[in-house]
Structure formats: structure tokens, C-alpha cells
């Protein structure tokens, strides 16, 4: 029988759906009888869910332009070190 203390070790696999069915069943039974653990698991899961909101879905257009200018400048005017590296590798410049 699971105790509250055991829940933490199982949480990762529980949320990922990676628990053995028998263990998952025991955990679900425990949660049905223990409001403290249920609240803990719900808020743990919600924390993970809110974290997804922090993903940056767009990159600002001015930053995109700045990045391309930076790379173009680097490719058009490679440093001495880069030129030496390319020569040693025998690789061509940009086409």
C-alpha cells in the first residue's frame, strides 16, 4: 500500500504515463482517498502546464534581420582565423 511519502518518487513516470498499470492503480486509489496528495499532484501537474506558456512562440522581426545581417557580415568578411581554418580543411567559401 502506498504512503504519501512514496508519491514524489512516482510522479515523473505517473505524468509521463510510464508507470506499471498495477502501480498506477495503487496511486490512483491513494489519490482518491487523500485530498492532500491529490492537491499536491494537481498543482504539480498544473505547474508543468503553466511552464509551457513561457515558450517563446515568435521571434521579433527586427531580431531576425539583425541575425541575418550578422551572419552575412561574418560570411562575407571572415576573420583571419576562419580563413586559416577553411584553408587547412580545403573547403570553399560560400557559393
Amino acid at each position: 500500500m502506498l504512503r504519501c511519502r512514496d508519491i514524489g518518487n512516482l510522479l515523473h513516470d505517473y505524468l509521463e504515463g510510464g508507470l506499471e498499470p498495477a502501480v498506477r492503480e495503487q496511486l490512483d486509489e491513494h489519490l482518491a482517498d487523500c485530498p492532500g496528495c491529490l492537491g499536491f499532484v494537481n498543482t504539480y501537474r498544473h505547474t508543468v502546464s503553466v511552464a509551457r506558456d513561457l515558450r517563446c512562440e515568435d521571434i521579433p522581426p527586427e531580431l531576425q534581420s539583425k541575425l541575418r545581417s550578422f551572419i552575412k557580415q561574418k560570411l562575407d568578411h571572415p576573420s583571419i582565423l576562419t580563413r586559416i581554418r577553411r584553408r587547412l580543411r580545403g573547403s570553399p567559401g560560400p557559393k
Partner: protein
Amino acid sequence: MVRIASQSAIIDGSMSPADDPPEDVELVGRLRAREDRAVEALIAGYERRVFSLALRLTGNRQDAEEVLQDVFWSVLEHIDSFRGESKLSSWIFRITTNAALTKLRRRTRSRELPLEEALGPTMSAEGQIAEAVVDWTRLPDEQLERKDLAGHLAAAIDELPPEYRAVLVLRDIEGLPAAEACDVLGLSLPALKSRLHRARLFLRKRLAEHVAARYPEITASTERP
């Protein structure tokens, strides 16, 4: 210095070097041939993810912009030595993570995360929960603003030590599969799971503290009897 595929890409039997999508294999070939259009394809394919990762890891817009530029230049400079033992995406995310964490470590002092026992609910000697746990997820949406929670979560992530922050950002924010996150960070799966769990516990605790302070009426109405 760029670390290239220092860890085996095969972790837990779930990933093999052949996992690179065909379009990335082709892209590597075109980059090695110094095709201009391949450079644009590389940037267009990865700029959002590299910037998002750098922004969350450094917690600083200026640092993230510098990381973004350094990463793409580093990839272009070292593409000839990319051996394909990792997926191209894993290699790029590894360069990003290393560059971002280097900036972060220069800027902030390293701190320790409390032990797992101190991050979860208080337990009795018998292993039972010995404190009232507020379940804020049972509240109506209008009572708890998700945007407000996300703002506090972002601030709490900035408190995480770099090695925990990296795991959390890759897995929970960027949504990388566990095997790829292991490859990016050079961690075993158990180590990854352990760090992720502690980071999540820390963040949950911070949100619980915020909810208790910001919405005292909620705390009172949802406490365990």
C-alpha cells in the same frame, strides 16, 4: 569551444543516430557545400527555438540575442566537424545551452537547491502528508489568472541553479523528449528525471506561496478539513 557529440545519442534504447530527419541530413550536406540558401534554411528552421531556449536559460534579452548570433555562427563554422552522432537539432541545442549557461554563470552566483524533502509537502513520521495543501487548480478560471501564475513562474525559474534550469527549460518549456534532453545535456535518464523533479517541486512551492499570499480567501476555502 563547441562540444560535439561527446555523449552517445543512444540513451535508454529510444534514440539512434539514424533519427535525424532526412531534411536535416540534406541540410548538413548543403551547409558543408557552402550553399547560401542552406544558411537561410538553417536560420529559418532553428532561430525561434534557439532564441526561446536562450531567453529562458539566460533570463535576459540582451544575453539571448548574443547567444542567438553566436550559436548560428558557431554552427556554420563547425559544420564540417559535425559527425552526425547526435541529431542536428540536439547538436544545435547543446551549443545553445552551453553558450547560454556560460553567460548565466558569469552573471549570477551559483546557488544550491534545497533537498527534495524540503520542497514537497511536510510529512509525518509515518509518511503521511502533515500540512494543508491548497489545490488551486480546482478554482474557477476567473479567480486565478493563468497569466499571473506564468509571470511568477518565470521569476521562479530565474532562481533555479543553471543545471536545474537547463533541464526544466528543455523538457517543460521547449518540450524536448527526455532522450533528446539527455543527449543535449550529457545526462543519464535517471539524473535528468531527478533534476527535473526537484526543479518542478521548487517551482510548485513558489507558486503555492504566491497563491497563498495573493489569494488568501482561496487558501481558506480550499484547505484540507
